[in-house]
């Protein structure tokens, strides 16, 4: 294996472009005749649209046209959909209210799109948008999920009485009740998982180009999954058949889930391009992003965890209410169900688990997957609960966890997941050692002497990545399969293009995927190009989310590479008059094992294309395609430890150290994995200490800029101490599990456990701002 193969700390190939400002993002795309769009949006959280008058706006300077939802509807453009069917426990299907790309009669959140202005400049488009006159009949609004469930609450959709979308359950409720009734100890806790705004560095943007000669559309967009975008826009929104719609997701500046979904703007810009016969570009500004990008989390839960006299967990019972916002976003139903409740066993052997989940409409922006998606909610709930139990039982948090760890694999949980491999104690031990857990008491005394409160907390997380076996998710309601595709194209001189259905928007695929090929063939990494993000180049793919690109996307490349190598070996054997079975590929050569006979890689490639001397009957060329459908999820797991010092005078929390011991299985590029963990930790620490979306009682967004929404910054974070325990994943050929979300999943409970340890009270919700910590200290004393 070369120095640039699997396991090497290769610096990112794409960084030169990004760091020198040469990245090409959607907003950088300019085509002849292009005009600019601005969306007219609702200033009300809930209102009937009585009348829309576009006439004044249409006569404004530079305006090409102003279009509203009636015209869109008349042209047969469909409503936005949620692509994962969930059935309530009574058997009824989820209650999906209509989400029109441009609202026609009712608006249901501040930011709901109503009309599009197309003009020569973005300034003129915005000027004209202000001249659109809309008469509203303002309706009562509800932003809070508990209030939305009360009798008499404002109703969002006629399809969903009581604003209830579904009332779903998993596990055996009676068995859980029996176990709780006969338990030696029951820990009860209320858990709130705060609502977050994703805030990728690049806001959303789209460029719709209609070619009237070909009746063909091109859509540049900030997407994590351009093929899914094309599929959904073709199959459900009637924008155009797939062969008449090309979707390109060029360089994308971060997604964190928020760029998985199809939003109104892509559809409307494509449609508007046809209506106006000019290319139409829209770029979100930051406040628009706060108002319209799908938010994350927003759960409230009641939890009961039962223990026997020996402190073994006998049952877990969870009742969760999840706020899905004003409409059901593309995967919104899957997040609080199959991505959440299926992880409620955590790292523990829990014989009985029951979870009930109700999802609710409110007059807020739709909520969908955000880095971790369901798994941070499950982890936070479990790890806060077991920590609380340890305190109640007077046990060390490590010992209570250790006692309940799953130790033999495969392990079937009572909530669908079948863990294929793991070694939870290894991560726990590594983390405790790195944190010098045993030296904490002395450090706490030192803090006390300085008037500070010191605390330590841990979190043992597990997540399900490598999403997902297609038949399994299909049986659970998914509208798509979750395999991945790859095509390996060897050029005549031996350079290689790898086409992948994964999409890189910060993950470094251009480096890691190339490492895989470089390592297999022993060719320089510079000779390999990774091609992604264009439906005209890559035939089909399912995109990047859920830490799936390594485990699923790279496994597809492995399969395609297997085929390429098999053919190359046949050619090499033919050229060297050797047996195919004796050919090995090493250092850029195909060798006859045990001899000095070899042909260079490029010569085999050239031979495949000249086709002068191929084995009888062999087709020319060296290019193979593969689809990989995983046989199971992968299960990254680990242990995080946070140590904090709280200033009792101000409630300010200083993170003294943060230890992350992760088991991601085999690692392709440690440098990139560390970067992924750092980023995830920053977001998780952001959720724990700083970030929260706030709406007022009228549904107005109070946190619509960085002046009010607190993002973590470099000086909020400590230097992280990372380590890896590599238990290979048996379910895919590379033995990898995925690392993109772990940091965001595992860190919040570690921090809250540490802070509550420091201040001596368990009553604390995220984000644990200095005010809340100060209040908690004062309430407790």
């Amino acid at each position, binding site marked *: 294996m070369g120095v640039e193969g699997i396991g090497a700390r290769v610096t990112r190939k794409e960084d030169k472009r990004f760091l020198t400002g040469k990245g090409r993002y959607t907003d950088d795309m300019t085509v002849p005749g292009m005009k600019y769009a601005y969306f007219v949006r609702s200033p009300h959280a809930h209102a009937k649209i009585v009348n829309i008058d576009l006439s004044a706006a249409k006569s404004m300077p530079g305006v090409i046209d102003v279009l509203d939802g009636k015209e869109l509807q008349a042209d047969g453009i469909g409503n936005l959909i949620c692509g994962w069917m969930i059935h309530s426990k009574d058997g009824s299907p989820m209650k999906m209210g209509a989400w029109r790309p441009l609202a026609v009669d009712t608006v249901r959140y501040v930011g709901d799109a109503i009309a599009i202005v197309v003009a020569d400049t973005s300034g003129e488009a915005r000027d004209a948008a202000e001249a659109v006159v809309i008469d509203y009949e303002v309706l009562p609004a509800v932003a809070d999920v508990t209030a939305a469930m009360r009798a008499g609450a404002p109703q969002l959709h006629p399809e969903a009485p009581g604003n209830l979308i579904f009332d779903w359950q998993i596990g055996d409720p009676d068995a859980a009740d029996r176990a709780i009734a006969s338990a030696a100890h029951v820990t009860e806790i209320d858990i709130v998982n705060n609502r977050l705004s994703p805030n990728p560095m690049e806001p959303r943007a789209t460029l719709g180009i209609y070619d009237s000669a070909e009746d063909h559309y091109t859509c540049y967009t900030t997407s994590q999954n351009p093929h899914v975008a094309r599929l959904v826009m073709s199959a459900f929104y009637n924008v155009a058949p797939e062969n008449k719609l090309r979707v390109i997701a060029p360089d994308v500046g971060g997604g964190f889930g928020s760029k998985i979904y199809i939003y109104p703007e892509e559809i409307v810009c494509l449609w508007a391009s046809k209506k106006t016969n000019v290319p139409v570009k829209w770029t979100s500004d930051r406040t628009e992003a706060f108002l319209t990008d799908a938010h994350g989390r927003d759960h409230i839960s009641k939890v009961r965890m039962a223990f026997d006299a020996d402190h073994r967990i006998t049952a877990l019972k969870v009742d969760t209410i999840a706020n899905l916002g004003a409409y059901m976003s593309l995967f919104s139903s899957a997040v609080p169900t199959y991505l959440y409740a299926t992880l409620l066993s955590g790292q523990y052997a829990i014989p009985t688990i029951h979870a009930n989940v109700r999802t609710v409409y409110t007059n807020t922006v739709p909520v969908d997957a955000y880095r971790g998606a369901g798994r941070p909610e499950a982890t936070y709930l479990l790890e806060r609960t077991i920590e609380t139990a340890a305190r109640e039982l007077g046990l060390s948090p490590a010992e209570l966890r250790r006692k309940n760890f799953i130790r033999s694999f495969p392990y079937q949980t009572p909530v669908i997941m079948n863990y294929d491999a793991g070694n939870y104690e290894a991560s726990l031990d590594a983390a405790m050692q790195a944190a010098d857990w045993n030296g904490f008491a002395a450090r706490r005394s030192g803090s006390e002497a300085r008037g500070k409160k010191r605390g330590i907390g841990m979190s043992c997380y597990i997540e399900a990545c490598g999403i997902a076996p297609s038949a399994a998710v299909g049986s659970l309601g998914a509208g798509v399969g979750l395999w991945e595709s790859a095509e390996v194209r060897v050029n005549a001189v031996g350079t290689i293009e790898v086409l992948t259905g994964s999409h890189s928007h910060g993950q470094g695929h251009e480096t890691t995927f190339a490492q895989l090929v470089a390592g297999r063939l022993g060719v320089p990494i510079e000779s390999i190009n990774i091609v992604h993000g264009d439906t005209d180049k890559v035939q089909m793919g399912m995109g990047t989310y859920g830490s799936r690109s390594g485990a699923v996307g790279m496994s597809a490349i492995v399969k395609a590479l297997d085929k390429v190598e098999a053919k190359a070996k046949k050619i090499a054997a033919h050229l060297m008059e050797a047996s195919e079975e004796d050919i090995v590929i090493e250092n850029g050569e195909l060798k006859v094992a045990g001899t000095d006979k070899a042909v260079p890689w490029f010569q085999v490639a050239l031979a495949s294309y000249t086709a002068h001397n191929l084995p009888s009957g062999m087709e020319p060329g060296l290019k193979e395609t593969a689809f990989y459908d995983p046989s199971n999820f992968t299960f990254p797991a680990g242990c995080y430890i946070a140590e904090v010092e709280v200033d009792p*005078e101000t409630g300010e929390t200083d993170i003294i150290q943060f230890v992350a011991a992760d088991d991601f299985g085999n690692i392709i590029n440690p440098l990139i994995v560390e970067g992924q963990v750092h980023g995830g930790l920053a977001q998780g620490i952001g959720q724990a200490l700083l970030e929260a979306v706030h709406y007022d009682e009228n549904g107005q967004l109070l946190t619509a800029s960085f002046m009010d929404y607190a993002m973590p910054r470099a000086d909020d974070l400590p230097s992280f101490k990372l380590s890896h325990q590599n238990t290979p994943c048996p379910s895919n050929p590379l033995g990898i599990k995925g690392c993109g979300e772990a940091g965001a999943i595992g860190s919040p409970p570690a921090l809250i456990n540490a802070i509550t340890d420091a201040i001596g009270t368990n009553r604390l919700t995220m984000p644990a701002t*200095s005010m809340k910590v100060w209040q908690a200290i004062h309430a407790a004393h």
Partner: protein
Amino acid sequence: MYATSYHRASSVEEAVQLRSAHEEGKYLSGGMTLISTMKQRLAAPSDLVDLRHIPALRGISIEGRRVKIGAATPHADVAASRELRALCPAICDLASHIGDPHVRQMGTIGGSIANNDPAADYPAGLLGLGATIVTDRRSISADDFFVGLFETALEEEEMVTAVTFEAPEKAGYAKFNNPASRFAMTGVFVAKTVSGVRVAVTGAGSDGVFRHPGFEQALTSSWSADALANVSVDPSSLLSDLHANAEYRANLVKVMAKRAVAAAG
């Protein structure tokens, strides 16, 4: 942003002339608040008269213990001035923690105080120092200058040209950042000046920067953080928002005051 006309004045006279020629115009002195407000279309001046390139408005001059800072002097220059640091390190430290490096290069002391954001640092510094604000037509004491939220004693078209103050015997500033904006959620400036002890609080008052007589009396009797222990802060006149309610701000006012005294030495 709506269309606007930009004028770069090269003298105070020219600036005043330009400003009075445009009824809907505004002075621009860094624009760290004004430009972003305009970008959000919440302000729409027809003309901007940029003051940052007027040589007479820039720079720090010191005579004995008398300090004069030109209105268009950026925060970074105040933070970096060795001469000023030798006389009044507290104001240099205050300037060094305003915003971020970009803001400190562009933002100016005159722009900051003319805007009088209730969470800005300079109003506390100047009120605490008992400074005098010099305009193109008069001098205004800091006590009279800062009137309320984003409100000052400046008349329409009146321009701040400089601030002056007598270097204090001792001074200190302590600030607790808003976690999102990093403006002062509470900032307290304490000074032992020639005319007595002054304590000014920013970021916390529902009517903007204010002096705290109770703290001033306590520190006059005994210049020590402990002297503040039994002085109460009334939350009823303090701001309440997402990040800090009035009770928490009242606590921060006291804690920051103690820390400012400790910093002053």
